[in-house]
């Protein structure tokens, strides 16, 4: 009887922790660095507040892909490198993806995503920042706008 009760409780725990997988997409996140810009590293951040329908329900997350693309005809020519991190007000910053070097002449490029990175804590917190470290390879008088597309695989409690 005791063994049956234990098995049931373990089974129930498994059911309560596992969830459905769904893609969470952030398209055209606009990372803007106001000009004039100088050669070096610039930081751009974007705050995400998770929708009410997902708050408190995400039990697992993985970054599937991260892509940057140009917002104008200049392409990504200004960029030498891109490093993407996430951070929450409680959750520690974690490196997620990198592209170094940015292929010259490209208007879009995929970042290399870390298989070890785990963004679950940010979705659990429900509110986090996307942080882009942009390696700028030349001085520029105007604003710089880089668009980012991110796809996360979320495991959501039923």
């Amino acid at each position, binding site marked *: 009887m005791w063994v049956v009760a234990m098995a049931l409780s373990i089974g129930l725990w498994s059911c309560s922790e596992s969830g459905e997988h769904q893609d969470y997409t952030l398209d055209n996140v606009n990372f803007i660095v*106001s000009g004039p810009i*100088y050669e070096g590293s*610039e930081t751009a951040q974007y705050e995400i507040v998770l929708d009410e329908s997902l708050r408190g329900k995400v039990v697992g997350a993985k970054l599937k892909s991260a892509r940057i693309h140009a917002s104008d005809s200049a392409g990504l020519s200004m960029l030498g490198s891109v490093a993407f991190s996430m951070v929450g007000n409680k959750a520690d910053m974690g490196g997620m993806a990198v592209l170094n070097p940015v292929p010259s002449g490209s208007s879009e490029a995929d970042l290399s995503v870390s298989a070890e990175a785990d963004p679950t804590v940010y979705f659990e917190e429900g509110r986090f920042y996307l942080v882009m470290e942009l390696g700028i390879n030349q001085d520029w008088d105007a604003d710089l706008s880089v668009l980012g597309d991110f796809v996360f695989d979320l495991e959501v409690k039923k």
Partner: protein
Amino acid sequence: MRKYLAFAAFTGLAFGSTWAQVDSLATEEEEDYSLYDNVSFADAGTKAYCTNKIEGLSPSKLISVGYDYQLGYNLTSINTPGGQVQDVYEQADFARSNGMRLALNVPVISRNDLIIQLGANYWNQGYSLENEGIDNPIAAGLAANGLRTTGMNLTVFKPFDETRFFLFQGSGDLNGDYSFSDIMPLKYTKYSAAALYGKRVSDRKMWGWGLARTYRVGELNYIPILLYNSTNLANTWGTEVLFPARAHVRRTFNPRSMLFMGYELEGNSYRMYRSSVPQNDLEIRRGELRFRFVYERSLKDFIWLSAQVGYRYNYSFDADVLPEGQEFFRGFFGDQPLAMEQSLTNPLYFNISLNLVSP
């Protein structure tokens, strides 16, 4: 009522922020990174100091738990009170000699301009005698009681400026065949010290010279010492030398994995406190050269494994009589007679340890 609430709400919320999603695009203030080439300290009187390390050096160990194992070897003992041969004992055959080695180092002060570190160590060595019952009281004593060292040490690193520094280390060791239920009086403690003046020439080279009072050759001696640490530009090769105590060439595979080739001089004076030996106040002057390969690698973060394999060359295992532990100085050229002449054959040895390393 509404007026009060409206006023209060305005006052309270005036200092707050919204909780709605903010598509904030907060960015850095524009900056020219070349600005950071041209800086000065905000504090005009700031002084810079050199560190006690160079790039590529192996990490220093905060906690070390290790095990040392020597393969079999022989001991010959001749009792020579007053320098005259009195007894020639039977040769002892040891199957092995092994034991735990523990060390702890705590940086009690760790600043730019001063590092003070306190350390403690405990080494235990047991001896397994193959031919028990032979007429060799030293071998019988070693087999019955083993030898151990319990010590404390103090290290001070004082940089004067960006290149020059002073290093001092002092230690007190209680060495012998005592047990913790029958511990030797502290008057038998052996004191060692070393002081050197050095220069950190660059991020990849440092040297120093000084003087040491040491028991590493088995008995008390005063010897000059030379420090030389270096790393090549690619951080693939280096040297870690504190001559004559130790000298190694380092091959760095990556910052978490290194191989060392070289030697270490180990030794101390061990009092036969419990064992029945032919002369009272007998102290074995143990000194040995360990030629070795050492492989060190990080298992996880700051937990490092160190594995040694080498050849233990016996430099000295002779014995002197030290009434009340009163030390005397023979040095390399003294002619005071030995109380017992002993020699060991030379085996292979292994040593493995788990270490918590320092930031």
